[in-house]
């Protein structure tokens, strides 16, 4: 700070005089003019009113179109959530395997529907009945299997 104050006081004391004032003025003006004439290839368009306005308008349209499109996409995806279900391809195939097995049990008795004393049963009830029957059959066989194993063990002893 002291150095700066000293410099300022020195300058004030000596009063620097410009010897060639007009020449200096000309040089400065010449430089300014030559700088103005330089073409700005990148952002020169900002000086052309119609181009500047057009590009600004185009940018606005693009942003607007983008927002509208994204809103449209989000809305459709939100609606899609209502159609989501908890199942996958493996479960579907598992269901199909179970279904053909159950159907094969029904089809063993194809003539049943033609009998005079036949009754109407809803398909859902029939399928449930057969599933329950098969479950019981499986448990029974499993139980029977363990009984046979027990008997064998007794015989061995």
């Amino acid at each position, binding site marked *: 700070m002291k150095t700066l104050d000293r410099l300022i006081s020195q300058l004030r004391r000596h009063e620097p005089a410009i010897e060639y004032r007009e020449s200096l003025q000309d040089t400065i003006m010449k430089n300014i003019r030559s700088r103005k004439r330089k073409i700005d290839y*990148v*952002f020169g*368009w*900002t*000086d052309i009113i119609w181009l*500047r306005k057009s*590009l*600004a308008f*185009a*940018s606005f349209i*693009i*942003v607007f*179109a*983008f927002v509208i*499109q*994204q809103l449209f*996409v989000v809305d*459709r*995806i939100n*609606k*899609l959530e209502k*159609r*989501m*279900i*908890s*199942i*996958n*391809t493996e*479960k*579907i*195939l598992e*269901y*199909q*395997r179970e*279904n*053909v*097995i159950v*159907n*094969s049990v*029904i*089809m063993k008795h194809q003539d049943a*529907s033609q009998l005079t004393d036949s009754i*109407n049963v809803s*398909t859902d009830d029939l399928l449930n009945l057969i599933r329950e029957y*098969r479950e019981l059959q*499986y448990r029974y066989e499993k139980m029977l299997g363990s009984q046979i194993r027990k008997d064998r063990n007794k015989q061995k002893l």
Partner: protein
Amino acid sequence: MKRKINVILVSLVMLIMSSCEGPDALVINIVREDGSLTRKIILTYTKDEFDLDKCQVPVDSTWNITKEYDISEKGDTTYTLTAVRDFDSVEELNKMYDNYEGSNKGMTRQAYFQKKFMWFNNLYRYTEHVGKAMNGYPPKDFFTEEELDFFYMPDKLVEARLEKADSSQVKKNIIEPMEEKYDTWLSRSLVKVLVDKIADTVKSNPAIGIDTTLLYEKEEELAMSIFISSSDEKEVLDSLMGSGFYESNSVLIDTVMSDFEKEFNVAFNTDDYLIQTIMPGKLMATNGFVDEEGNVLWEVNGDVMLSSDYDMWAESKVRNTWAWIITFVFLAFVITGLIIRVFRR
């Protein structure tokens, strides 16, 4: 006529059972951005007997076929046949549908693929269309939106839905009313087809003295009497249309009935199958059901195509990264230019 209607009534009862005879089918479509697709057909059966000519959808021995079997915990053996083929376009698939002679040969099926360029994204739409069997009432005229969801829902999904905590509510508020309406929809549709056919015949043969306006007026009563109460058709027609109506128009009624039966059989003979579609990019919308893997699922059966066209469609989008980059660069250029101008001032 009595015999024919009885056949139809038995058919209605047996409608669902008709799919029990052969293998169950799951058709998987993997759709790609260029419109080509891979179709995979998975047939499941209790016997190692797969007749590809009778399959629910077109398939032949030129497909890439593999077989395997599975023995369940309960000791049941099931066989699975998987057939895979690549299609360059849906047109190629449609040609197969046109030449199809299998169990669902009465069905009109077409596939469509559309691609829409929307600068930031490309939208894709894949549709499988099944033409209606007869001109009855579309289900949407009878069922609510919620009921329609269950109407079109594959059986397994209905079962899974009913395993949830609110199942009794769903059963009471949706399933049961839907089942009640189902009979009305079916009977009204069938009677409408019959009445339309009689009206068309009368229109082309004015000599036939039938008051078709009266027939249309009595449509609901006819449906109730013939299909719901299973009353004698002769008595019903005579009581509604005037004594002797049945006898004097028996030839016309028989002709109309045989025509009707042909159309009805298309729906009745439908061999059910499931269609799963995997779309390119991110799934956006569909009228099917979206599974845990993001694939779309529909069931094709006699009900869904009995009286209205069934379009199974799915839409997806793929982001155009190059368009995003161009847009970003352009916006950055314009905004920078404008900012620089403000600072220059």
